[in-house]
């Protein structure tokens, strides 16, 4: 059988076929949906429900069950993702595909909020008179754009106290009562001086990781890495001060990276005498130390934070413009971030409320924590929340730079000279821009 198409022609035919195929695919993948366009609103038909995706433990299970009982027309379906990092990657991917696959309510970690605020066209403006003044100022400020749009409802906050090991303090011959310990940690200088004294007579770590102390200090710096116009500036005196302080005291900590297996193990052996402790950290301490606590181990909470107050963490609920049920979504998150509901969450998980009213509610104020020697946890964290004076400015690159900064501190832990490590940090930051 002779093929009647001449050879060169055949070759170009094949090329053309591949070309057509690739072009077709490109067109198919280009996508014509735009996450900046608000989707057409639809009624919640029977069998259709409002979707929300949370990460970690928001403590919403019982609340959503209650909501579904009271609102037969707006059924809510929750999807739980275990890690924020995984969920963040999924949000990013969905936004690239024009917002396809995003739920009606997207839960995001506080550090991600600057990126939301930087792209106001993608998210629904949620401001309403109903929620005005509901949150601590710094929480609502973190979700508000320059022209006053509110893009996220805050769920919880992370006011920090100091959790400490009463037994280790006693063994080292230091005062160990809550008030006495608090009196010795008013400033960072006091805190590190106490650490030096502690290390003279103990083999345990004074704190869990250089990285977490750096994080705690950064939470008191007004412009940690970025200026108000979002330009990166890592040359400030405050940042240099944090860097110098932390890198010159690496012997006080475990030298492990926070959240690494070595960090987890250090809670058991040799033990961490103090931990910078937002409300949600208590769960980690319990888990890493062991529950019930091993014989002789006594954790406690001191109503103090060196240098005043500091907030670490807390999340937000947002609604993307691609949601087809924006009104219902708004109604639902207005309800679930209300003080009464967030108080219930606090009782279940220990996530500390970010609502002004919840901070003064009886249930929160009278809460004690048995694991922490019966410390009046509710009262302590309320005081700590009230002590927060500085709200650090976080631009869209904050969490990226923070990670590089943590790596830089970790390099010093590992034995690299601080100056050399700082030079690498500058290089890392340059490649982020």
């Amino acid at each position, binding site marked *: 059988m002779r093929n009647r198409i001449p050879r060169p022609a055949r070759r170009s035919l094949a090329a053309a076929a*591949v070309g057509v*195929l690739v072009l077709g695919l490109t067109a198919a993948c280009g996508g014509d949906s735009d996450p900046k366009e608000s989707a057409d609103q639809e009624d919640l038909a029977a069998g259709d429900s409002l979707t929300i995706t949370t990460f970690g433990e928001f403590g919403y299970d019982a609340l959503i069950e209650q909501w579904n009982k009271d609102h037969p027309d707006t059924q809510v379906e929750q999807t739980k993702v275990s890690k924020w990092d995984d969920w963040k990657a999924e949000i990013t991917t969905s936004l690239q595909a024009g917002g396809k696959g995003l739920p009606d309510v997207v839960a995001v970690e506080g550090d991600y909020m600057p990126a939301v605020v930087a792209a106001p066209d993608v998210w629904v403006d949620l401001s309403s008179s109903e929620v005005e003044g509901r949150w601590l100022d710094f929480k609502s400020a973190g979700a508000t754009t320059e022209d006053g749009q509110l893009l996220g409802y805050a769920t919880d906050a992370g006011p920090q106290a100091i959790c400490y090991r009463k037994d280790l303090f006693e063994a080292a011959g230091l005062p160990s009562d809550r008030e006495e310990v608090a009196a010795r940690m008013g400033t960072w200088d006091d805190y590190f001086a106490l650490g030096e004294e502690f290390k003279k007579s103990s083999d345990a770590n004074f704190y869990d990781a250089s990285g977490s102390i750096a994080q705690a200090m950064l939470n008191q710096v007004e412009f940690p890495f970025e200026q108000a116009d979002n330009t990166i500036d890592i040359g400030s005196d405050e940042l240099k001060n944090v860097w110098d302080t932390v890198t010159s005291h690496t012997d006080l900590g475990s030298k492990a*990276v926070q959240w690494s297996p070595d960090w987890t193990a250090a809670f058991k052996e040799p033990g961490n005498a103090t931990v910078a402790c937002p409300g949600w950290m208590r769960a980690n301490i319990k888990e890493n130390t062991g529950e019930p606590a091993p014989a002789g181990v006594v954790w406690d909470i001191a109503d103090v934070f060196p240098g005043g107050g500091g907030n670490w963490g807390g999340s937000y609920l947002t609604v993307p413009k691609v949601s087809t049920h924006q009104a219902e979504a708004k109604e639902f998150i207005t309800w679930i971030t209300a003080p009464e509901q967030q108080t219930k969450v606090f009782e279940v998980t220990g996530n500390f409320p970010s609502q002004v009213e919840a901070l003064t509610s009886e249930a929160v104020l009278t809460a004690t924590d048995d694991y922490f020697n019966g410390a009046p946890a509710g009262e302590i964290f309320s005081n700590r929340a009230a002590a927060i004076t500085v709200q650090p400015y976080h631009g869209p690159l904050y969490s990226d730079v923070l990670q590089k900064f*943590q790596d830089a501190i970790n390099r010093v832990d590992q034995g690299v000279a601080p100056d050399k490590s700082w030079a690498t940090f500058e290089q890392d930051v340059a490649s982020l821009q």
Partner: protein
Amino acid sequence: MLTDDRPGPGAGTESGSTTTATEPPDGRLIRRRRLSRWDLKFSPYLYISPFFLLFALVGLFPLLYTGYLSVHDWDKIYRQRGDFTGLENFEFVLTDPIFRKALVNTFSIFLMSSVPQIVVAVSIAALLDNRLRASTFWRMSVLLPFVVAPAAAALIFGSLFADQSGLINATLREIGLEPIRWHVDRLWSHFAISSMVNWRWTGYNTLIFLAAMQAVPRDLYESAALDGAGRVRQFRSITLPMIRPTMIFVIVTSTIGGLQIFTEPRLFDDSMSREGGADHQYMTAALYIYDRGIVDGFYGRASAAAWILFLIIVGIALLNFALTRYLTRRNA
């Protein structure tokens, strides 16, 4: 593809005029004959098309689109393609000291994993090639590590290689040696990651070698034994030359896989930004692409790095190919 119901260009002019004398006037017959001619001509292409279509969709298109992205900027905030930037991204990647470090790490981990892996796999295969009791059991058991999910394996290895609380360091301390800083020292971290890779892939390659060895004619061994060759001599002079093509295949595939190492260093990593250690001690090229693209949101730079890695792998594969031809020609 071709909606025109003629075989193609060049055939159009002769369809009407040349077929008058020979063909019967029955139109159905003409159609049938034409159909059978097309059948012969196009069917083979149809049969092999699924692979090519699939490859075009999940292989070729991403490849080309990555190339397209690599010459453009990427808007991080709205996650859309930005302006055309030419070779700027390539320039950035090639002058990035971190990328160079990542490339060196990649080759170091690749050599530390592939070389011992192939040596060990051939040795184990040679042992399994003998008559054993319950031979199927032994042969299957080498594949066990391959079945375990890499993530689960990484957890186990993570607790083995933890710097302070790890089992290996605890043992070293017990016998009075200095603990090894697995996540700090560059070479040791490569060693730890390579051992994960080896643990997973050695059994897999063993089975491939075993299959090749089973195909070696047994009478060769018998005649060698008559000539007085011992076991080792038989292995050197018969087994190794006979499995050479398989050897080349395994070397090529493990090169491609080895230069794309991602899972193990990613899961071994305990640093904050997860870029292959606090000082990028064990960041591999694939990890670099992931961190620049997915984590930092620089699609253009990540795409450029991906293309550079692609070219490197193609180069090495060609080198392997040339080597193969040279070796096989020498044998012929």
